[in-house]
């Protein structure tokens, strides 16, 4: 099967089953989707709808039980652990709900962690500048607010100039004003680095800033919508 050249991700009949027999939980029930290069995509859906499972598979954190998953035409559904490590190292940036910064490293050093192993990173300070935290580069996580910590996490994710930026509930632990600043940082990163960006959120309002919105329900893609115009984060209804 050939995939269109402009496609970043492409899945066909992607399934994920946890457990066996009667206890089996079908997290993904044959997902078919295509995400073009450079787009900002928002995944919406209730808890347990399969969106995090999909994101984990797209990011190489987890492997599928069945079906096909391609990144830029490269089949990754059968990839072993070290190939997935290599894939994450060279192509993927992650942002999580709980930041996952190293408390023993300063903001800049947290970014250095990634720039030191990436093939073509931007300078760490530039990445921090992109999220508006250049002047706090020597602060430790304990000295930063939640929103600042999340922006450091974004800087860390974009510093490697990732081909894809995957964000799981990046604003889940933040108040609305801080959340908007974080979303602005993600949008800027998407625009300036051209990374294909996938954001999971519970907040339907966030969907308006995306190029494309994917609605998940019961482990499958329920609905897909294209926004004619992206709304800037500052104008989102929270």
């Amino acid at each position, binding site marked *: 099967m050939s995939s269109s050249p402009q496609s970043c991700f492409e899945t066909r009949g992607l399934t994920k089953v946890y457990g066996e027999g009667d206890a089996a939980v079908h997290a993904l029930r044959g997902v078919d989707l295509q995400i073009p290069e450079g787009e900002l995509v928002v995944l919406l859906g209730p808890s347990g709808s399969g969106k995090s499972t999909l994101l984990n598979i797209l990011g190489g954190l987890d492997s599928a039980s069945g079906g096909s998953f391609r990144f830029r035409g490269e089949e990754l559904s059968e990839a072993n652990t070290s190939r997935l490590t290599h894939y994450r190292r060279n192509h993927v940036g992650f942002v999580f709900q709980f930041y*996952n910064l190293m408390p023993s490293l300063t903001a800049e050093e947290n970014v250095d962690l990634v720039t030191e192993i990436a093939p073509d990173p931007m300078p760490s300070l530039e990445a921090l500048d992109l999220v508006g935290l250049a002047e706090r580069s020597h602060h430790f996580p304990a*000295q930063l607010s939640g929103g600042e910590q999340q922006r450091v996490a974004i800087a860390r994710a974009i510093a490697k100039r990732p081909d894809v930026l995957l964000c799981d509930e990046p604003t889940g632990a933040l108040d609305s004003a801080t959340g908007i600043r974080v979303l602005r940082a993600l949008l800027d990163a998407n625009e300036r680095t051209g990374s294909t960006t996938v954001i999971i959120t519970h907040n339907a309002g966030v969907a308006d800033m995306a190029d494309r919105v994917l609605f998940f329900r019961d482990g499958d893609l329920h609905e897909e919508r294209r926004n004619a115009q992206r709304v800037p984060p500052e104008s989102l209804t929270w």
Partner: protein
Amino acid sequence: MVGLKVLDRKLLRNLRGMAGQGLAIALVIAGGISLFLLMAGMTGSLSETRRTYYERYAFADIWAPVVRAPESLRADIRAIDGVRALETRVRDAALLDMPGMIEPATAEVISLPDHRAPRVNDVHLSEGRLPDPGHRSEVVVLDAFARAHSLAPGDEISATLRGRRVELEVVGVALSPEHVYAIAPGQLVPDDRLFAVLWMSRDALAHATDQDGAFNEAVIRLMPGASEDAVIDTLDRLLAPYGAPGAYGRDLQFSDVFLSSELNQLVTMSRILPPIFLFVAAFLVNVVISRIIAVEREQIGLLKAFGYSDLDVLTHYLKLVGVIGLVGLLLGSGLGIALGRWMAAQYAQYFHFPFLIFRADPTTFLLGALITLIAVLGGAAMAARSAFRLRPAVAMVPAPPADYSRAIGASISKLRLIDPQSRMVLRQLFRFPWRGGLTLLGVAASIMLLVSTLFFLDSMQVMIDTHFYQANRYDVAVSLVEPRERRAFHELARVPGALTAEPYRHVPVRLRHGPREETIALIGVPRDAMLSRTLNAENEPVEAPPGGLVLSADLAADLDVELGEQVEVETTQGRRMVRQLPVSAIITSYIGSVAQMELRALNRLLEEGAVVSGAYLVVDPAQNLALFEELKAAPGVAGVALHSLAAENFKAILDQSLGWSIFVYVLFSGMIALGVIYNSVRITFAERARELASLRVLGFKRGEVAYVLLGEIALLTLLALPVGCLGGIGLAFYLSEAMASDVYRLPFVIHISTFAAAIGVVVVIAIGSGLIVRRQIDRLNLVEVLKTRE
């Protein structure tokens, strides 16, 4: 789990979840408790057995040898203030010709009073009966010798006593408090085949040794509180006209000196070892409980929110460590008793008591339990304090990230040459310095124990090499019944198989320097002696100017005398004379004390002409049979000391009992290293699982992630190596000083291989622990770790 309170169920599940760590801690506790029970129990058993044995069999307080004193002196001795019981007796040496053994056995022959039990130094008959005064050939034989030769009442022994061949009949087998550690004079390690004690009736022995109506030793028991020194002084004055070399107390009685030195070693070790284990256990409990409390912070908040009191929560965690402590205590008690029985069996080989049972009394157990309780609860209470103080509202909010900004290590961020992973390792250490420091100390303690334990082997090897192969290079020492003219030496030099021979002169003397006084045998050896050399600490021969005294360093220290100073020498046998002699050399001797001078100078001093007391021989082993046959039959020969055999016996002891003890200590030290390193790695892993998972998500390889985790313990282990080695050197030095006795001194020598072995053990344990946790990194579930809030 039905019937258990919910909190107790939680406790059981917690324990199941931390089984490995709990066991590692329990093992360290078990190590401390078993050593404590072993040493306290063994010290108690030995000293109690000794006390009872000495009391029941009226062990003497003072021995007063003389050449020949009339029995009429009894009344005068008995009248000395402080004397509770007195026995006069005859004591002499004999050579025994045992069937099936080519070497002659040396025997000490002691008289028993006729028609009654001795009032002092009674014997414990294990078989047969006491000799009948009417039958002069009847003897009772020392139990160990009887067993070594399968002797039983009715058997016969051929002996040479005072140059006369006699046939003796065994009528009984006995033990005596004087011969708990039964060795020939000048030996270190018992050889039951080669040394005998024979008890004969007073009449028989006096007759055989020309002591009719006389005695050559008085043994005395003192009144409680009587002054030993005063009694000895009076005795010495009273006995001086009869050729008395000087009375002595238990501190110079060979068997008791060995027993005391053994007890002293046990006490020294019991002061050092168990506290180290229990300190490490307390630290481990502390870090593990701190970790559990950190993980369960929210649960604690919840429990408190539900209305559980602070005390309920505190008790819950104390119960958790209580279980670990109990397991450690039970394991340690079992192990301690097993080791104690094993050690008692080892002691029974060398120390002959009618009974020796390892018994740790209930107070020892209670004390052990109390120490465990203090260590474990102390460690836990420090950690649980924070759980106790947590307010429910605060506890239920996740803890903020640890603040690394104020740690000393924050300044390292300026050093660009350090990569971020190494920086994480360093900052972790600087952020929690006391924990890192204690881990380091724990690992160092293990190395320290390993080094100081293996040091014994190094030291003993040097001791054997110096004493048996460098200083005293003869195979056999032959002593004559009394000093003879030089012709006697030439006869000895011509015995079959003798390759080289050197004469020696042996004179009992008293050395005085200021108020200090020591009783010792002054040995005269030829100039440039090759078989009995005087060496310095580097094992180089010492050239001493003739005419002066050569003293071993310990003797010089006891006399508080330095090189060139004058010492008063008083001969205590034969013609009494007092001379001032300069100390011309101070030498090293690890076994016994040495006072030597040049043979001719000694003879000149004594004005007795060119006489010798015996000879040192190097012999051709192929001709041993002929050699020993001749010596056994020679009328002038009083004793034959088999030096090369003694060296073999000593080495055998090293290989057997000491080898096993060292194996046990190495095992226990390893347990400390395992407990500290394994727990440290497990806890770091648990604490940093989230960071490690994040690194994996960021694309770090497993090896790179393992570095962040294991780098910390690797660094601490590396730092602990020199600290532990230095500690080991210090402890070994302390032990070599603390365990020095009149009998022997441990040379302070540690071979490089000892450090290498100690380091090797700890490094293997560190790598093993690392590999176990490394497998857990490989199995880290990235998704789950990241999705859950810590």
